[in-house]
């Protein structure tokens, strides 16, 4: 068993049900061959940096899993046939993975997801306080970014 991560881009005109169907189908391929899904993340509709098959936007789906090499091959073969999938990229993360690490990883990801959700909920509940906090965070971050960007352009000019 190896650990992989795959990101694929779906056509933007797909409905929610069609997207779920494609995701379920890919997950089933992995699971039926004895693999496990560690993490699945939808990045949503994003603008592509360049056009792919005449599309300017795409739904990004990212997932982290364990599987055999042959399973990945089979999944990619299906991706290539499917016209709804614009692009995919599979990266091998680890050569071998044991059950313990899988469980730990799943737990860790679930915990971080829960923490994020909690943060969101508290934000919604205590609007005033949370709004203040996010405002502060929002102010600090972009300022840093622009500073960095400024540095870079300076260096480019040199």
């Amino acid at each position, binding site marked *: 068993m190896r650990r992989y991560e795959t990101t694929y*881009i779906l056509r933007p005109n797909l409905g929610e049900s069609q997207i779920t169907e494609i995701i379920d189908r890919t997950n089933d391929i992995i699971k039926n061959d004895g693999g496990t899904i560690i993490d699945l993340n939808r990045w949503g509709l994003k603008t592509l*940096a360049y056009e792919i098959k005449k599309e300017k936007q795409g739904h990004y789906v990212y997932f982290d899993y364990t599987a055999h090499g042959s399973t990945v091959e089979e999944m990619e073969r299906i991706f290539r046939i499917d016209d709804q999938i614009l*692009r995919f990229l599979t990266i091998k993360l680890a050569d071998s993975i044991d059950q313990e690490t899988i469980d730990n990883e799943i737990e860790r990801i679930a915990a971080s997801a829960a923490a994020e959700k909690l943060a969101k909920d508290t934000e919604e509940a205590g609007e005033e306080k949370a709004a203040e906090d996010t405002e502060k965070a929002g102010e600090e971050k972009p300022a840093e*970014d622009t500073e*960095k960007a400024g540095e870079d352009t300076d260096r480019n000019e040199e």
Partner: protein
Amino acid sequence: MAPRNRTFRPRVCRFCTDKELVIDYKDVKVLRNLVTERGKIVPRRIYGTCARHQRRVTEAIKRARQLALMSYSGSTQY
């Protein structure tokens, strides 16, 4: 021949100094600073990135390009 007058550039790898800064093809925010306005990968002599990290940066940028997170040419706006 007189040595050319060069401005001093910091010779420290920013990824070695800042351990929190992770090179990942999914994290375009970091990678965006390492390409020119035309989308070319900046050579390591400019920023002083160490060989190991520059290798990872190159790999990450190329992966990000495949996924249309960054462009092969031209600026990436987000």
